[in-house]
């Protein structure tokens, strides 16, 4: 970051076929390592490895017997929030801001949307849906910008402030949902259910999957759209250029008259907005649209960090790695249903995956003498 020398060795970029080959070899290596790790874990838990792996695969992609649609729909549902929160991490970390605040921003998004639904229940359904999405994105952005403001004006490390804001958001949600936003009977710790017209439509008709309603919803398109928008914003706009320069070297960016403070605020706001969007998509994509007082998010905001890191902090890579983690989550759910495998196994896999990538990158950088991250 500051005092390191420029690369001393002559680094000419390898040719495209070489790069492709190296990339494929890497993927193969990671896949092998991944399967090995899983196998070892299953052995340690005294679970038949082959059967467990098959169950994992079936959970994520289905099988010939039960069809593929239901499983694939589960995978995509798990992928959707991870894409958005992962993109949030990409934007912030690319700008050199190590935000871990996705969880809180996501909760604040869902909370704001719920509050709007309470106040504006009389609005026509499509309008209410659109407004909820906008308000959630906005309030996620505000929650993110709060950490940005603390960094820019008060010099508070964003690592710490975003974690603190996650906890504050969590308790604000349970306070309000158990208070003014609670459903009218006051029996259940959740907010009012929303009418079906407000919720996202189910994409796959029943008859496609043995009359079982798969819960794939329109949110998946919003996530894909976000990947495109963020990719363009990062690589094809002056602001994106500024963010990336700042992420490489903030002092150099300041010296080159980039508006570093404004860029930091913007990066945190965009990052938070994406997470807020993830929150409302999960709310509107659920079967009832009611916000529970606790455990609304199954750690999407935190998982976003390994998702984005494994995706090389790149929007396209993040989409792929979110798919990988989405499939893994859906697969693990199937696994835990049938064989008593802990769901936390997924964290172990995530950790190992990121460690392999980070370790590989760092040791390469050490050999060539260039910067990591």
């Amino acid at each position, binding site marked *: 970051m500051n005092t390191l020398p420029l690369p001393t060795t002559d680094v000419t970029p390898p040719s495209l076929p070489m790069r492709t080959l190296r990339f494929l070899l890497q993927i193969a290596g990671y896949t092998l390592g991944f399967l090995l790790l899983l196998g070892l874990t299953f052995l340690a838990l005294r679970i038949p490895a082959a059967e467990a792996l098959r169950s994992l695969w079936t959970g994520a992609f289905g099988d010939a017997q039960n069809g593929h649609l239901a499983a694939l729909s589960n995978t995509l549902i798990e992928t959707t929030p991870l894409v958005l929160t992962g993109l949030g991490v990409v934007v912030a970390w690319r700008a050199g801001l190590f935000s871990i605040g996705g969880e809180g921003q996501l909760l604040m998004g869902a909370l704001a949307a719920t509050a709007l639904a309470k106040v504006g229940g009389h609005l026509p359904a499509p309008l209410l849906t659109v407004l909820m999405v906008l308000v959630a994105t906005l309030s996620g952005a505000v929650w993110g910008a709060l950490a940005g403001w603390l960094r820019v004006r008060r010099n*508070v490390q964003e690592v*710490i402030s975003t974690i603190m804001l996650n906890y504050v958001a969590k308790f604000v949600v349970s306070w309000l949902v158990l208070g003014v936003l609670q459903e009218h009977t006051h029996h259940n710790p959740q907010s009012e259910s929303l009418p079906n017209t407000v919720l996202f439509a189910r994409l796959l008709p029943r008859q496609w999957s043995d009359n079982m309603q798969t819960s794939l919803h329109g949110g998946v398109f919003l996530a894909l759209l976000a990947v495109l928008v963020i990719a363009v914003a990062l690589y094809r706009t002056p602001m994106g250029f500024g963010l990336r320069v700042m992420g490489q070297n903030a002092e150099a960016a300041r010296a080159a008259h980039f508006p570093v403070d404004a860029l930091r605020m913007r990066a945190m706001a965009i990052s938070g907005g994406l997470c807020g969007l993830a929150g409302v998509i999960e709310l509107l994509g659920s079967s009832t649209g009611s916000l529970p007082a606790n455990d609304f998010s199954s750690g999407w905001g935190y998982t976003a960090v390994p998702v984005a890191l494994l995706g090389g902090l790149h929007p396209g890579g993040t989409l792929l790695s979110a798919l990988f983690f989405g499939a893994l989550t859906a697969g693990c759910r199937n696994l835990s249903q049938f064989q008593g495998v802990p769901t936390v196994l997924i964290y*172990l896999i995530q*950790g190992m995956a990121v460690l392999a990538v980070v370790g590989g990158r760092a040791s390469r950088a050490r050999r060539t003498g260039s910067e990591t991250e």
Partner: protein
Amino acid sequence: MTVVGGALLGTLSLATPLLLAALGETVVQRSGVVNVGLEGMMLTGAFAAFVGTVLSVHLPYHLLGADPNPYFGLVVAVLAGMLIALVFALFVVRLAANQVVVGVVVNLLALGLTGTLLRTLPRTGGGFLQTQALPQIFFNQTILTPLAFIAVPCVWWWLFRTRRGLELRACGEQPVAAEAAGIPVMRRRTAAILFGGAMAGLAGAFLSVGDVPTFQEGMSAGRGFIALAIVTSGRWNPWGCLIAALVFGFTDRLQIQGQAIGLHIPHDLLLALPYIATLLILAFGSGWSVSPAALGRPYRRT
């Protein structure tokens, strides 16, 4: 015992794990490394202390007697904390990888590893995981509480009144200059991280065998992150950490006793209070200005 005395001791005991972890992290950050994996190290310590206590019965020749020995658990917790700290140091110091990234990974690994290994443990009647707690040696406190409070002046003395402490702080302020002066920066940072791991292990042990002798998935419940906040709001000084840890312990205690003494603040807001307090302290204290200058920056010998 009076109500006030009870509240005071409650505060001390709630502050203990935070203080232990924060003191270790203070040394780590003074050496120029920020360890976001503190949470995971505490969780590992909690798990290791629990397992160590359970397994102490199976030592050869019944070395520690026939009953589970929580002190053996403490030793195992310290070793486990240092082991995971060694992995962290390998990536952060040797490979000069991004410290926040590796910290996040440590948290994930700890959560996954302890949760998975938990399933391999034998369960006692009723499916509960239980073992022996640390004995309370005075005023209903285990050995860890006095240990944490005695560690405050010790760490302060070492950091600010010894040559080694000065050298460590130099590594965190100007690693290049320190190296030029003959201080092995990478080795000192590794040593600091190992100390941080050991302290985090003890802090974790307090959670699992200190009070209610059990282990639950993810039982550190964000305390490692609070300890990080304590280091920052304590201005990288052990005495500051002591004050901040006590404030946290007190607010924690307040939310437990809040209802009992008829405070009319919603429960959830009381729970959020410590985090809001940290944010306010960080925002309106002088913050960055006193932080080690090279904090968070990887250093590589050239």
